[in-house]
């Protein structure tokens, strides 16, 4: 695919530029720095700040052009430092600084501010402005996370362009005109975008500041390491920044294959949870008066004893749940420990995932979304679960590179951008796909080239089988389609690939909990997992946790589940440990340690290694290097990560040594009777997750629990919008406020998962394929 390069001359040197490239980028590549404010390589150039002037040889002599809106052409002669260019840049800077408040000493941006830097490098050196500067109230909150100081703003249109063009949330806009122009929200309608933090990062001055970082540090005091975000499985590239051994900020790093520099607010701001005072700092052992502080030596000894006792009964009386929150090395060390102890019951998914076989189907990459002409969504709402993947898919639709065909039970963040959005409930999914696949419209579209199928759990209240069958149907229609798994938990793919998945016909999390409930589990290891909060069957989780004889929990916080444990071992968190992680497309990249682990907490792999010694089955791991090397050597999928450099920056895709195919099979499910609603349960970005509830800036962003139905259904139920109703399943009755929503399909009820207040999981029963509820007024 290598296109011919164009030969141009920049500042007297010949340079090979890429076709379609802008002069500003070509200059950057050639080492001739052109200053700019409004240009951003991931957004449409607007040529507003007028700082990136260069001189280009034209048919009528040299002319000044803005390099951010001028494409390269063969033979172009570009000069970046002529007197005219310098004069223009000085002029722009003097004009920008005329009304800019010189409050740099108390500005978060001071020290890393493009305006400050360019005033120094390209500015006139003095101001002749003696008039009264513009004044605005400063700063004003424009959302829960972002403050705006309009006096500092240089009106570059970056934040507003980002909100409109990248995030699709045009909630901030230029208001008024001329020198009165300012960025604002609509009155009483805040900039509540999941991506608002990006505007702070790309603001070329200190006009936008983030509440979690304001006045926390000076840029020159920051230490930083490049890393990968593990909040969800997209795996956005970040820098992790600390000051005085405390995390203070994450910034997005622009890599082509994944996040293009963007982060979601949850991933950006949940560093607060790492610094939380609620973190576990020391091992705990259950005594007569509950959990009490202990030492590692004692706690490991107690844990080893529990494990030995259980193993003496048989390895089937031991089980491990979790592992998707750590690194590949963490997961591998625990899988290795399980191997040597013969523990087959292990599962990194919490009965909310999909069969691991989907990782062995022909795989698509995130980048394929922006290359393939067709994207099929058999996925939960990407905007809510995998926000930056949503940005990529939205970009594909907006730029018309792809058409999105969505199958969903309720409208998603991508519905407005979908070419076709087909509403259907899960049980009918395969049949619907079979049917629409016969239309010429769809079959023509599928034959236009590559097809990417994004597959995930669309509805936690129903069997994963429906999605798998639907996927088989799609792959039958479009055998050339490739699969992008949309499982949400940070390193779920790495953990499963490293071995934290049921072995030799052992059951997964649901079976483990069922076995525990019937007294068959002597020792249950919770590896950074909280079944009481996450397993979509509250009753089963409760019975399982209660029924397990002994529980060893490895965790960063005392959760609903770990507080039921007999031994709690404090784990090092993100930013406190080194390792590699795997994103949803199988990309392996490094995570960095930036700060000292909280208290006496240790990385999961180290805990596994120490426990192995304590139980007399030494894994032979004494350093991170050991466990990493062992992972590379023993799991073929990780072989591409053997070179230490390969996992930096872009990372490297794992191997898929044993491809499988899916058999088509019919899933049929009875229609619900007309007095009931079929329940749809799916996640929202902000929920009761530990990283969110322990981040003070994020905790209030989760909604209160509620049930959503179509307006016609609300009328049929006969209640007003917003009033409490009774929601009854075979399992339980809950009281929830009812909201009407056009986004919900008639005949279904949507309850977001894990929101504040009433717990929808009480309604759910993992042994049922679907969950039907009756909704009544009280």
């Amino acid at each position, binding site marked *: 695919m290598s296109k011919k390069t164009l030969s141009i001359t920049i500042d007297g040197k010949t340079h090979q530029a890429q076709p379609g490239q802008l002069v500003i980028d070509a200059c950057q590549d050639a080492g001739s720095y052109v200053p700019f404010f409004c240009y951003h390589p991931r957004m449409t150039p607007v040529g507003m*700040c*007028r700082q990136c002037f260069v001189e280009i040889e034209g048919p009528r002599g040299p002319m000044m052009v803005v390099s951010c809106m*001028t494409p390269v052409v063969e033979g172009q002669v570009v000069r970046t430092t002529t007197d005219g260019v310098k*004069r223009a840049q000085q*002029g722009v800077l003097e004009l920008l600084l005329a009304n800019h408040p010189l409050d740099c000493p108390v500005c978060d941006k001071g020290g890393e501010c493009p305006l400050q830097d360019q005033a120094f490098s390209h500015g006139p050196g003095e101001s*002749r402005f003696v008039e009264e500067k513009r004044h605005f109230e400063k700063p004003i909150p424009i959302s829960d996370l972002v403050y705006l100081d309009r006096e500092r703003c240089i*009106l570059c249109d970056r934040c507003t362009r980002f909100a409109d063009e990248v995030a699709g949330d045009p909630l901030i806009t230029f208001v008024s005109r001329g020198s009165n122009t300012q960025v604002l929200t609509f009155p009483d309608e805040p900039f509540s975008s999941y991506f608002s933090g990006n505007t702070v990062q790309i603001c070329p001055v200190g006009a936008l500041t983030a509440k979690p970082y304001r006045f926390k540090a000076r840029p020159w005091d920051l230490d930083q390491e490049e890393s990968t975000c593990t909040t969800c499985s997209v795996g956005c590239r970040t820098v992790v920044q600390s000051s005085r051994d405390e995390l203070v900020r994450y910034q997005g790093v622009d890599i082509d294959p994944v996040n293009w520099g963007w982060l979601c607010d949850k991933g950006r701001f949940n560093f607060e949870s790492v610094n939380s005072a609620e973190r576990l700092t020391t091992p705990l052992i259950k005594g007569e008066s509950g959990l009490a502080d202990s030492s590692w030596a004692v706690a490991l000894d107690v844990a080893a004893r529990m494990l030995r006792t259980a193993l003496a009964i048989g390895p089937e009386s031991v089980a491990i749940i979790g592992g998707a929150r750590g690194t590949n090395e963490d997961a591998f060390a625990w899988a290795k420990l399980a191997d040597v102890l013969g523990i087959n019951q292990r599962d990194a998914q919490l009965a909310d995932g999909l069969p691991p076989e989907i990782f062995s189907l022909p795989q698509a990459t995130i980048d394929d979304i922006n290359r393939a002409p067709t994207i099929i969504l058999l996925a939960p709402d990407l905007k809510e679960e995998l926000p930056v993947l949503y940005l990529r898919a939205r970009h594909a639709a907006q730029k018309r590179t792809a058409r999105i065909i969505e199958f969903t039970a309720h409208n998603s963040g991508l519905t407005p951008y979908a070419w076709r959005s087909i509403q259907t409930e899960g049980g009918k999914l395969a049949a619907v796909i079979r049917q629409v696949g016969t239309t010429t419209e769809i079959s023509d579209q599928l034959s236009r080239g590559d097809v990417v199928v994004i597959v995930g759990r669309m509805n936690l209240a129903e069997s994963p089988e429906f999605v798998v069958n639907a996927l088989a149907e799609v792959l039958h229609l479009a055998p050339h389609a490739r699969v992008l798994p949309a499982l949400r938990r940070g390193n779920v793919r790495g953990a499963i690939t490293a071995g934290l998945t049921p072995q030799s016909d052992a059951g997964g999390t649901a079976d483990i909990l069922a076995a525990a409930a019937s007294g068959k589990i002597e020792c249950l290891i919770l590896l950074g997992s909280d079944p009481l909060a996450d397993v979509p069957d509250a009753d089963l989780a409760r019975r399982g946790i209660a029924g397990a004889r002994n529980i060893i929990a490895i965790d960063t916080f005392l959760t609903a589940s770990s507080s039921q444990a007999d031994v709690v071992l404090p784990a090092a968190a993100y930013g406190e440990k080194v390792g590699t992680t795997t994103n949803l497309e199988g990309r392996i990249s490094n995570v960095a340690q930036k700060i000292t682990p909280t208290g006496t907490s240790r990385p999961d792999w180290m805990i596994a290694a120490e426990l192995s010694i304590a139980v007399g089955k030494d894994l032979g791991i004494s350093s991170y290097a050991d466990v990493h090397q062992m992972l590379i050597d023993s799991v073929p999928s990780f072989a591409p990560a053997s070179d230490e450099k390969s996992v930096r920056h872009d990372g490297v895709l794992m191997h898929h040594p044993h491809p499988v195919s899916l058999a088509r099979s019919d899933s049929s499910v009875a229609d619900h009777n007309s007095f009931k609603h079929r329940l749809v349960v799916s996640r929202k970005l902000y929920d009761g997750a530990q990283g969110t509830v322990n981040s003070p800036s994020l905790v209030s962003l989760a909604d209160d629990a509620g049930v959503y139905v179509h307006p016609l259904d609300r009328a049929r139920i006969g209640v007003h919008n917003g009033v409490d109703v009774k929601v009854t399943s075979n399992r339980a009755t809950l009281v929830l406020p009812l909201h009407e929503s056009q986004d919900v399909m008639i005949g279904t009820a949507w309850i977001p998962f894990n929101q504040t207040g009433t717990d929808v999981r009480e309604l759910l029963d993992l042994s049922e394929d679907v969950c039907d509820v009756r909704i009544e007024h009280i």
Partner: protein
Amino acid sequence: MNTEYSTPGQVPTGPRLITGRFDISDGYTYDGYVRTGGYVALRKALSSMTPKQVHDEVRAAEIQGRGGAGFMAGTKWGFLPADVHPRYLVVNGDESEPGTYKDRLLMELDPHQLIEGIVLASFAVNAAHAFLYVRGEMALAQERLAEAINDAYAHNMAGRNICGSQFSLDITLTWGAGAYIVGEETALIESLEGERGMPRLKPPYFPAVKGLYMQPTIVNNVETLANLPAIINDGGGAFKILGAPTSTGMRMFSVSGHVNRPGVFEVPNGVTTFRMLFEAPEYCGGVRNGGTVKAFIPGGVSAMWFFDEHLDMALDKPTVDKAGSMLGSGAIVAMDQTTDMVAACWRIVRFFARESCGKCTPCREGTTWLEQVLRRILDGQGRPQDIDLLFEISESISPGIAWPPLQTTICPLGPSAVSPIASAVRRFRNEFDHYIAHGRPIDGVDDVLHPEGSRVHV
């Protein structure tokens, strides 16, 4: 005062090609229009001409756009890429250049002539949809045009199969809401898309290629289109010989300021001189109170000013261009010897500062700063270095302060604010120095800003 033109008939005049119905009381109605020869050109074109033939007549007429830039309309149409549809005609009725007052009359007094021009132009460029964007403040023009478009549809002069031909055209009438910059064609397109009226950068956004909705778009001025019926009726050649070879046809000029009879005149383009306009009884009949012209603006306040040495120059585009200014929108403003040039300069700069859209830095910050400095001088707070400062700020907006202006800005609005400063300061430096030294105007000029002598700083 020169009295050469005191006798009627001594100055060149011509037919009232597009203002002929201004004196007919019902000229703005459908019946009045048809009775006076209206829609004949359209019937002729649709029944016996091809689009190319219509285009060829307009080319042959060599009519220059009457909006300000003076670009040849026939050439502009030729920039449309072949076979890209839909394509649009956008009619720029957002006349706002200070001193300019002609499109409003054409819309109020002869709306059907404009509509006929719109249909002819759309036929020539093969557009199926035209948008007529009228300035927001022109309520009467809006009413007259709405009535006229409704009548045109009712009489099959617009809509489906016009005059029984295969040609169909929809005309959407819409109007602005108060923003001078929307007169700039790309800003007008933005406004028409429901956006803030901020200009797009050319290149890459040349309307003929990427215009309304990023489709090929022709933006034409009202007066330009109003000439089309005459061009089609009489032929491009007949039109061409009405003016000078370099500025063809008749053209509307509005002459305001210190003349005895300000007015809007349709004059033979390129032939008449400024002096004739100011002095001839057919036109303005002399400077007020028998005074003299101290300075005049030849083509809207964006233009560089002219002085008495330019009075005998013909209103001919290439001649005026060469002399360092422009005819622009045909707005001529005369200032007599009593004019306070500092105040006049400030008033024009204030206009640009208020009307800057705010999109690009040099214009947004520069015009505002210029206005503040001038206001300070007028308020008696001027400093000697302010004159250099005015030029330095101007330089940051328009490098070289030359004509035609170079610009660091996206559109020509910013450099337009430099014209009055360059003109006034260079010619009347003494008046600025006097303000700076004494806090008041020189003797003998009218202190219009402080008519009651209420000056704070003396």
